[in-house]
């Protein structure tokens, strides 16, 4: 009896392991395929023979065909400026929501949460009009500005700040510290894991963002890599698969490598950001 049960259990487990692995391979297939195509000459793009020679030429061709260095610089500038903006603005706002009792607080907080529903991503028509009015069209600042006051960031930090015991800042108050000092000396250091989690989520989100940057930029000096890649892949139709795939891998490369290296932190960060 017990032997039969043990056998059945193993059978179950083997089945679910196989299914899990099959799904993993399907999920990984596009990436494996991209790596294969990018590192082999074009004639092997659709022929999978193990003896195919390896090459870096596709990467060189892609790199020389479009100003990717500049695109990368733009993306790095964009992602950093958004991150700094978000950290500063969301920290200040979250502190106000977590520690001050003031009239209308709940109403204002609902207004903040509204942004989780209506993201700037869909308000492209009016935000473009605003940017034109501000004279910011085709600047990196214009790509990042709508995202800096992030409802998600404020919410996440407020939840963290609320878990910090009030006695800590009462003690600091007794010693004569002002609100800003308390925020910087007590709250921010204690919320470090949240900042890391939020930072990773934010960087990967904005590295990958496409629609708004496509609309608001129109020159090499401002385009992030995602937009650069789409321009590259659509204008040069004579370019072959291998080169486009190399460009594709290149644009996702830094993020992908960071993810593979810090896989655990990434997953935990997204988890932490998700639970709140």
């Amino acid at each position: 009896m017990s032997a039969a049960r043990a056998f059945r259990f193993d059978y179950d487990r083997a089945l679910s392991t196989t299914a899990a692995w099959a799904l993993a391979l399907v999920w990984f297939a596009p990436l494996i395929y991209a790596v294969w195509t990018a590192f082999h000459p074009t004639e092997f793009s659709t022929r999978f023979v193990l003896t195919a020679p390896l090459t870096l030429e596709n990467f060189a061709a892609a790199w020389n065909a479009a100003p990717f260095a500049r695109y990368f610089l733009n993306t790095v500038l964009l992602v950093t400026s958004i991150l700094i903006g978000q950290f500063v603005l969301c920290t200040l706002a979250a502190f106000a929501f977590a520690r001050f009792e003031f009239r209308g607080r709940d109403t204002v907080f609902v207004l903040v949460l509204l942004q989780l529903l209506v993201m700037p991503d869909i308000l492209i028509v009016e935000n473009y009009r605003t940017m034109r009015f501000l004279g910011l069209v085709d600047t990196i600042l214009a790509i990042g500005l709508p995202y800096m006051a992030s409802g998600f960031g404020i919410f996440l930090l407020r939840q963290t700040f609320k878990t910090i015991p009030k006695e800590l800042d009462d003690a600091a108050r007794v010693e004569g510290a002002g609100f800003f000092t308390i925020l910087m000396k007590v709250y921010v250091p204690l919320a470090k894991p949240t900042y890391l989690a939020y930072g990773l989520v934010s960087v990967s989100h904005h590295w990958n963002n496409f629609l708004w940057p496509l609309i608001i930029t129109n020159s090499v000096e401002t385009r992030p890599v995602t937009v650069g890649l789409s321009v590259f892949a659509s204008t040069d139709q004579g370019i072959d698969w291998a080169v486009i795939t190399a460009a594709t891998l290149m644009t996702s490369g830094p993020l992908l490598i960071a993810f593979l290296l810090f896989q655990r932190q990434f997953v935990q960060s997204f988890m932490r950001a998700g639970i709140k």
Partner: protein
Amino acid sequence: MGPTAKRTWIHAWLFLSPAMILLIAFTHYPAAVTLFHSFFSTPRGKREAKFVGLENYETLIADSTFWTVLVNNLWYALATIPLSIGIAIAMALWVDSKLKGRSFVRMAYFTPTVLPLIAVANIWMFFYTPGFGLIDQIRGAFGFAQQNWLGDPESALNAVIVVAIWKEAGFFMIFYLAALQTIPTSLREAAAIEGAGRWYFFRRVTFPLLMPTTLFVSVNAIINSFRLVDHIFIMTEGGPDNASSLLLFYIYETAFRFWDTAYASTLTVVLLLILFTVAIGQFLLLDKRVHYR
């Protein structure tokens, strides 16, 4: 307001105002002004925008492209949401169990989340290429005829849906993974003692306990199905004949290719209405069915 309350109020707003100014400028103000502009005509050249009442909405109702795109988007949402959630739950259960090679499997599931949608669209496009693409090669090995997945109005939208599911399932898995870890192991032990099978345990214990997560993920999935259109740009451009176009893509085309901003505003109002309906639905559901007893 007493003097202390007033001081607190001033302090609070000193901290709040930088974020609130930007938030209002790029979320609340544009949302409100979108509605306003939908009652005006598009300014062209020397002709200024003038009040036209409901004219844009009449155009909308008569616009067959709008209806195609709306139906597409609803189908896109209806197909992506349950499928990606179902796959996400399976993924989470697997990754949470004592699986061989668990860290590789988890990585494989999660990778699409960190890749730019616009970049992976390129790779998927090659999968779908008639004849040479991977899918047709595999089908060819079994003797099927080649098919133009992205060029055929019958299959274009579904081809795009597959990419969306692939992109999102791993992301949703994370939320389920987090939720699974809060389920006490004593429940599983108790069920084992009672002789409950694994499927029974999932159906009667795990799944109900995951309900709040499912609601949260569903709302996210709905929002995403109206927000994520990047892959359309690379894979189909909404074609053939709008067969794979989605609402936000149509808004983009209307505003930035045809420069009809008033009509784009009208379309955006529809999108906002859909999102508000979702929010109200979530609010009503939240207290009722989600929480297990």
